[in-house]
């Protein structure tokens, strides 16, 4: 089976800073996977390279068997890849319904039908009661849901979620996890960047760990948490050895 998304040796530098170095990964179709790593590891840069907001210095990005390296984000969205932003970006002057309808318009030229589709999508992410509110009035949790809804409305095959749980309180996280699970269950391939480990352990079948621009480990969430390289990347060099000594 062709993977939904395949990265081959992708690199990108900003001046002397190698933000992403030779990353290769393959996201199986229909999977729910996660990309984790400490702050500044290059996760968001990698997302930008996948979705076309940044051009890579080298390497290729293949979406469902089609080379999309360097293709503009709007064309990627048309090809079925949509992304959310870590810092939520609502169209603040418009209502929730209008916000979601912009996504629905990708495949639906008629206004009335796009607005109708927005209602259906809002129900999927639990925004039904807020449809006529201005997007600027939403809480952080509401904005995260809106971000999700807008991308869902484009009927993507691959969804890149950049920290949809960041900034939420434990209760809100608890409410959001089933929403993400529901999206994956509906057949959409989901790749998420996430800091909330509770969610990663709960949701992801496979995890990639990025540190200083390089992939340092991958595997199931259980494998990752016991991986020494991962522990060191998060807690500092030599930590794994110290922890072993303390345990002994």
């Amino acid at each position, binding site marked *: 089976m062709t993977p939904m998304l395949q990265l081959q040796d992708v690199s990108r530098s900003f001046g002397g800073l190698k933000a992403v170095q030779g990353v290769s990964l393959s996201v199986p179709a229909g999977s729910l996977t996660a990309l984790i790593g400490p702050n500044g590891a290059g996760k968001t840069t990698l997302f930008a390279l996948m979705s076309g*907001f940044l051009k890579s210095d080298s390497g290729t990005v293949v979406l469902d068997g089609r080379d999309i390296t360097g293709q503009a984000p709007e064309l990627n969205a048309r090809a079925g890849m949509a992304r959310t932003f870590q810092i939520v*970006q609502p169209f603040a002057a418009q209502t929730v319904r209008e916000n979601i309808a912009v996504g629905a318009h990708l495949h639906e030229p008629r206004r009335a039908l796009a607005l109708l589709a927005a209602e259906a999508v809002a129900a999927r992410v639990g925004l039904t009661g807020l449809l006529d509110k201005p997007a600027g009035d939403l809480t952080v949790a509401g904005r995260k849901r809106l971000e999700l809804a807008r991308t869902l409305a*484009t009927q993507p095959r691959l969804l890149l979620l950049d920290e949809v749980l960041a900034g939420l309180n434990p209760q809100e996280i608890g409410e959001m996890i089933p929403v993400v699970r529901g999206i994956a269950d509906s057949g959409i391939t989901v790749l998420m960047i996430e800091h909330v480990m509770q969610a990663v352990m709960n949701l992801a079948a496979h995890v990639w760990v990025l540190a200083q621009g390089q992939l340092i480990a991958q595997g199931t969430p259980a494998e990752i948490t016991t991986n020494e390289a991962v522990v060191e990347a998060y807690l500092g060099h030599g930590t794994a050895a110290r922890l072993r000594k303390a345990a002994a």
Partner: protein
Amino acid sequence: MTPASKDLLRIAIFACGVALLLQVLNSGVALNFVMMALYAALLAQAWNILGGFGGQFSFGHALFFGTGAYVQAIAQLQWGWSPWLALPMGVAVSAAVGGWVGALSFRYGLKGSYFALVTLAFAEVFRIMATTVPFTGAGVGLMVPLREGFANMQFGSRRGYAMLALGLVVLALLVTCWLRHSRFGAWLQAVRDNEDAARAIGVNPFRVKLGAIALSGGFMGAAGAFYVQVFQYIDPGIAYGAHTSVEALVGAIVGGMGTLWGPIMGALALHVLADLTRNLFGQLPGINMVIYGTVLIMMVMFAPRGLAGVGQSVRQLWKGRP
């Protein structure tokens, strides 16, 4: 009733109401006032398409105004065209100039004050060119001879011109209504509010902004052509001077950017104000620009959503909703 048909009904009521008013009014002063207010509304509506709905603040909309005006004059004087043919031609050429300037600026991602400066520069370049090349009559300008008659788009009284302006304003209202209730309009407002977010869900900002500047330029060109028909004279200063650009953007900002009725309310309010001050101060040259500047600062500080925004707040208070 869908929101779109509600808008259309209001536009129909507005059109009939103003048309009726123009039949009833008999004083030349009153007719002139309505005509000039409609003309100012058209300028503000044109600017509102790009500035209000697209968030691209142009400071050089005179570029399109002047182009429409010159096409209207040149087509009649040098090619012997009917003004009724010249006007759509002027609109098309202005729209094309809009597309050209838009392609150049949006291609390189110019935004905010950079875009404003580039449009200002283009208008200035055109003004200087118009003073030097011969077919615009250079600094002397072009005069369209007086030949009263419907076929020449020259009317015996201001009533005819006001009806023509009303027609153009209603057309602009219809296009604005379309922006409010169509995919293109939704895309344009999405790009205005957040370009990156719009791209992430499949909107091509370049194409959308290009469409908006062409539409906006077209209506500005229509206003220029209308100006030539009314005053039968155009020179580089009138055509491409900053005055028209300022009038267009102040009307739209004072009235309420990105709204259907804001530009009309803004233009009307400014004209009432300008007439009042003219009565107070006499013909002090440039006094209306001083007033416009003051009003603009006050509106931006205290009512950034314009008169339409104030109206909305009052209406919500009336309904008892926060």
